[in-house]
């Protein structure tokens, strides 16, 4: 196949659908298995619409599409349930990530897997939002007092809530990064400059959506699911451009994360950028190694690289002493 067998196989098929013409059956098998493991199989299915492919691959992708269409329906219903629970509070409710993409009909939502419902509300309104959700059938997932206290004190979201009948989770954010992380995004501006949807809910404006995706990837997480997050960014940039992005990212303290996201999105998916953005950073190769650490059997590879990014994610999230205390508490609980 002439291509290293890692996530770049999937990236190439997404960025350049015609490239699948060179795949043999082993190549198709690896591509489809990887796409499923990265939760990108329905996205791939939409990208490969109208491209000639073996019947078995077509069937596989048709199944992925049908499954995704059902997931989309469920996610939209969950959005509607949240609207009914919170609509009368007079509080701006901003949809985040996948739910926003599909509610607004963005290209980034095409084939997008949506798990939990993520919303952003003003911090001052958290108590009222929480009470309204509890009153409408959502319940706490984590009854553990340490975890609960940890979330409330140190996280950018409430402890996750799950609906007792529909079994779906909602994450209620008051900003997009933990308060313990170094960058401090301007949460008031995120809400003030959000865009109203026809149903009365809001979504972030396009620059903030990209900032959020980049923050999630590089200032918070360990890059698991990174190919999916970068694909979101790729589609958002494609749809909305990046004219005001640099200034907006600076305002949130996310300029380095956003620059890195665009460079990597360019490297993986050939995202079209203006001069200056695409200049590669010194450790981009390491990030690409982590992002594409997946083999044709769907397994994660490169354990040392992944461990490095896992440690890094905690390092970014909290100061050293706090990290030590947190890991100590978690370890003792596990041992006990």
């Amino acid at each position: 196949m002439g291509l290293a067998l890692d996530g770049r196989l999937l990236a190439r098929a997404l960025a350049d659908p015609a490239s699948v013409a060179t795949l043999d059956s082993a190549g198709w098998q690896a591509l489809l298995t990887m796409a499923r493991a990265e939760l990108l199989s329905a996205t791939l299915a939409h990208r490969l619409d109208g491209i000639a492919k073996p019947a078995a691959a077509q069937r596989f992708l048709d199944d992925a599409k049908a499954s995704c269409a059902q997931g989309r329906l469920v996610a939209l219903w969950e959005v509607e349930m949240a609207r009914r629970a919170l609509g009368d509070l007079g509080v701006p409710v901003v949809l985040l990530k996948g739910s926003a993409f599909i509610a607004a009909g963005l290209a980034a939502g095409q084939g997008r897997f949506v798990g939990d419902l993520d919303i952003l509300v003003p911090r001052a309104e958290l108590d009222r939002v929480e009470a309204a959700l509890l009153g409408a059938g959502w319940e706490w997932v984590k009854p553990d007092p340490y975890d609960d206290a940890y979330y409330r004190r140190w996280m950018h979201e409430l402890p996750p809530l799950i609906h007792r009948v529909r079994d779906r989770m909602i994450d209620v954010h008051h900003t997009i990064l933990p308060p313990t992380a170094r960058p401090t995004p301007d949460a008031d501006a995120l809400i003030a400059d959000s865009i109203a949807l026809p149903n009365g809910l809001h979504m972030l404006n396009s620059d903030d959506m990209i900032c959020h995706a980049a923050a999630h990837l590089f200032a918070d997480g360990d890059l698991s699911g990174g190919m999916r997050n970068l694909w979101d960014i790729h589609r958002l940039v494609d749809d909305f451009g990046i004219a005001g992005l640099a200034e907006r990212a600076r305002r949130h303290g996310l300029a380095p994360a956003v620059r890195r996201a665009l460079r990597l999105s360019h490297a993986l998916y050939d995202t079209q950028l203006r001069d200056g953005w695409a200049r590669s950073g010194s450790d981009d190769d390491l990030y690409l190694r982590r992002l594409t650490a997946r083999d044709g059997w769907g397994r994660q590879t490169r354990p040392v690289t992944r461990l490095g990014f896992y440690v890094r994610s905690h390092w970014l999230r909290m100061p050293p002493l706090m990290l030590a205390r947190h890991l100590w508490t978690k370890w003792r609980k596990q041992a006990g």
Partner: protein
Amino acid sequence: MRHVFSVAIGPVGFRLGSDWRGPVAALERLYASYPGPQDGIADFTVRLFADRPWRRIFRPKVMIGGDFVLPEAAPLSLEHGLLAAEMAMNLQMALGQRRYLLLHASAVERNGKALVMTGLSGAGKSTLAALLMTRGWRLMGDEFALLDPATGLIHAFPRLISLKNEAIGVMQGAAPDGMFGPLLADTPKGAIRHLVPDERSVAAMLEPARPALILFPTFGHDAATREVAPSEVFVRLTQASTNYVALAERGFTALTRLVAETPARAIDYPDTESAIAQVEALWASL
């Protein structure tokens, strides 16, 4: 992966990778008459692997992985590697199948019409299906019946027949020329031995059939037959399906159609001979 095996079971293709030769050798022997996945592209990938490198050699423990996994699945011993492979493939169907409504049921076919048998574990649906196979019926599957929402037809999934405990002796008597797998003693489900579906069942595995009778067998009582109300059939089949909820409206439409168009009976049976006679009598009365 070190050792690879691919197979098509009915309309579904599987690829299995293993850290050990043993399970693959067993699968190659038992599935020898089956074709490979269409276009060489499998619908599901499963992996049998050692969670630590030394566990491949020293007191080997077989972990089950694949496209779809259950958290905290217990590992099996290497002697039970064939069982691990079968469990891993079943798991992909149970968790990942979206094309067909999956019914936890056995199915046999005669004259283009399917008899679907479902019930609690131990009701004898596997054994009855295997016995009927030895008496002129085509075996469509002993574990899953695949209902196609687009057509209302049942598709076959004739994997190896999984015989447990007493059923092993029953089938060794009923199918003396049958091809059996190794006896797997002391598995989590007791003794297990696999029986390869007969040549005809494998050759016809891509032919679907119109469902003609749904049967709920129960072993251990005097012979009796009763009608089952559509409402009860519907509820029991939703419970017997692993992907009914995931298929949503497609699943509901397919299942209501099945229940509306297909007669259903429950039978109690004291022994397998009575059960066969009851089935034949019911089938003749349709």
